[in-house]
């Protein structure tokens, strides 16, 4: 009896080599050149020359706030320029009469799986109003879809962290299934940078968890906060455990001003998440990478009260990062792809990621010649495999019950 569960013939690896991918027990058991005496397998699948890449990683998404699976809600603009507090208030109002979170989060989750995401990190709000109800829904979703996608959960307070009862709620969240402690703009939103960071790093240290903070704060203020986060990260030996999401400030000032902060981020092993927003400066990807900073990508908000954009496709996100960064060469397009695969997996701590021996067989078979073409062409024809099992084809999620 063959030890190999599935042999995927006709794969083309990212480096161009043709291969047969052998899967046993949900993991990659071999990468064989075609034409050799084929290893016996219980089942053979012919990928017909498709480009095979590791499953995409969405490093930052909000499953709880989307209107996917719900009716369209016209965007309500801020009254006087982007303001986090105003956006939070608008979101609260619109979510109040939205379809149940289970319905919306499920619809979005199946969408992202169908586009090739095999790992994601979702931020989930906790709030004195709804306590841990949204977290519970997402934890239940994580469990229900565990055969199709791996989910990390960042718990963060919708209101300020210093609001009475919030810290206890976050602590409870970490016991109830949240993996990572989150937060928002210690200076611009919280209004008390040191207290916010004390709280976040305090919880992280106490419970041995990582941190992922939203940082929208602009210019020199944003850089100041990044420097302080770097100092604390290094002091607590949390290199590799801290992510600063957005960090627009890194793209808002001349590189000469930003470079010292970038070096501190690199030394502190802090990763930067970007989704390459369209109308706003964002971190300079190549310069940061050259400085040794891990930069990775996420879709962030998808069709929610913050903006109407997003279709859940990380390959499109890679294209947008390249498009906004002026990436034209094959090497640059491969950087964009790296941000949704290898770098993202490293940033959020996915173990055994990739197409190596022993890794979980989480991969996407794409109708493209190579990675650069996949990034600009965003082929609709894809097959998505998780632990060697087909979970989506051509944009359609395939339930394990089918």
């Amino acid at each position: 009896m063959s030890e190999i569960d599935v042999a995927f013939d006709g794969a083309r690896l990212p480096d161009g080599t043709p291969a047969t991918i052998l899967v046993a027990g949900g993991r990659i058991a071999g990468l064989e050149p075609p034409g050799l005496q084929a290893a016996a397998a219980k089942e053979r699948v012919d990928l017909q020359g498709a480009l095979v890449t590791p499953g995409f990683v969405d490093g930052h998404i909000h499953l709880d706030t989307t209107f996917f699976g719900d009716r369209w809600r016209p965007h309500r603009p801020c009254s006087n320029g982007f303001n986090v507090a105003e956006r939070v208030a608008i979101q609260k109002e619109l979510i109040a009469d939205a379809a149940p979170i289970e319905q919306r989060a499920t619809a979005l989750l199946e969408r992202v799986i169908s586009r090739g995401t095999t790992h994601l990190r979702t931020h989930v709000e906790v709030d004195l109003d709804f306590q841990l109800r949204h977290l519970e829904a997402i934890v239940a979703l994580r469990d229900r879809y565990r055969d199709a996608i791996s989910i990390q959960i960042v718990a963060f307070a919708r209101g300020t962290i210093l609001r009475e009862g919030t810290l206890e709620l976050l602590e409870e969240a970490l016991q109830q299934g949240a993996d990572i402690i989150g937060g928002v703009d210690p200076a611009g939103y919280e209004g008390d940078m040191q207290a916010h960071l004390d709280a976040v790093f305090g919880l992280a240290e106490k419970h041995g968890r990582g941190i992922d903070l939203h940082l929208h704060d602009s210019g020199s203020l944003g850089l100041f906060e990044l420097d302080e986060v770097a100092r604390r990260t290094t002091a607590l030996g949390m290199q590799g455990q801290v992510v600063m999401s957005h960090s627009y400030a890194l793209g808002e000032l001349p590189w000469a001003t930003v470079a010292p902060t970038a070096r501190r981020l690199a030394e502190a092993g802090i990763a930067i998440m970007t989704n390459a927003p369209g109308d706003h400066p964002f971190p300079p990807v190549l310069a940061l990478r050259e400085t040794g900073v891990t930069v990775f990508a996420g879709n962030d908000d998808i069709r929610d009260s913050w903006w109407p954009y997003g279709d859940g496709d990380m390959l499109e996100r890679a294209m947008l990062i390249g498009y906004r960064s002026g990436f034209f060469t094959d090497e640059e397009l491969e950087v964009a792809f790296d941000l949704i695969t290898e770098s993202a997996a490293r940033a959020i701590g996915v173990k055994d990621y990739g197409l190596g021996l022993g890794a979980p067989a989480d991969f996407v078979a794409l109708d493209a010649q190579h990675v650069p073409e996949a990034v600009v062409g965003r082929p609709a024809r894809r097959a998505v495999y998780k632990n060697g099992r087909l979970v989506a084809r051509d944009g359609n999620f395939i339930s394990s019950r089918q």
Partner: protein
Amino acid sequence: MSPVADTIFRQARLPDGRLADIVVAGGRIAAIEAGSAGAGGAQQTIDLAGALVVPGFVEGHIHLDKSWIGDTWKPHRPHTAGFDVRERLAFEKELLAGAAPMDHRASALMELAVSHGSTVIRSHVDVDAIVGLRHLETLLAVRERYRDAVTMELVAFPQRGVVSCPGTDALLDAAIEAGADRIGGIDPAGMDRDIEGQLDVVFGIADRRGVAVDIHLHDPGLLGVFQLEQIAARTAALGLQGRVAVSHAYCLGDVPLDVVRRTAETLAGAGIAIMTNAPGYRPFPPIRVLRDAGVLVFSGNDNVRDAWWPYGEADMLQRAMLLGYCSGFFTDDELSLAFDIVTANGARALGITDYGLKPGAPADLVVMDAAHVQEAVVARPVRRAVYRNGRLVARDGAFCAH
């Protein structure tokens, strides 16, 4: 006795939200009847079951002669020392020399554009002393072959300059004689170092030959603004209001808002349209400011996977999303504006009066599964049916006219 219709499209969801039957006779929209039209002895009835129906998209700026679509992938060659248009042209010339026949590539790109829903195309085609009329002759043949699938107009485009490429002026005139519909231009300052010299030729041909104008303007800042003013002055002097477009006009993204507004007023007064493709990695005209000043803004995909950049899928719906994404368009009105830019505005800019979902217009329709144009812009459904003169020419991304 009611006339026999070619087709009745039943239960179409119109952009204004109404459900209606669209009656097509002789390839044109005969009637749009909210509720239900009579059977009328139609040759065929297609039940759209509430699918969204919009007019075919207007591809307002593309380069059918330059693309690698239909050919092998050609990695982008980076500049040796910063952007240099002559170096880029040298790379392009070398790559074109080894490329698949232009007829084949242009046809493939044309089919791709139609498959995404474009029913009107304005393509610039290189005409200068180096390539002569060779590109034009090829595209004239392609146009003829596809005339049942798409309306195409050709702009004689002096890619290498006019004054700085001796012999080009005569060739541009010969191009119009040979069948090119419009006269183009390129950066009179940046390319020719002679603003008046180039504009004399371009507007001379426009005046003599009675053809509309579409000038590429990449020149930055106040240099670009000055040229816009010169173009506006000549437009007014020759009575060419409504017959002149400037493509890109990046300068309007470089200068302070008060300069943009002042220039926009001048452009509006001269009836000059601005084409933008929202490039992503560099400043581009602030669309809302232009629109508010009464300037007609339209769009195109510009270069699609060629020597200039690897991006582009020839999908005007994706272009609408990118326009909105890069402009910070979030509200329903703004998404609707993005949609107008790739439809009605494009038709107006190209001087097409019988366009749209109205009786008398050609039945050039795109049918897709979306609730309204806003959702269509952000979701960009893959599955679309494209009709030209009431006949199916593409379905689900595949060209199918003969």
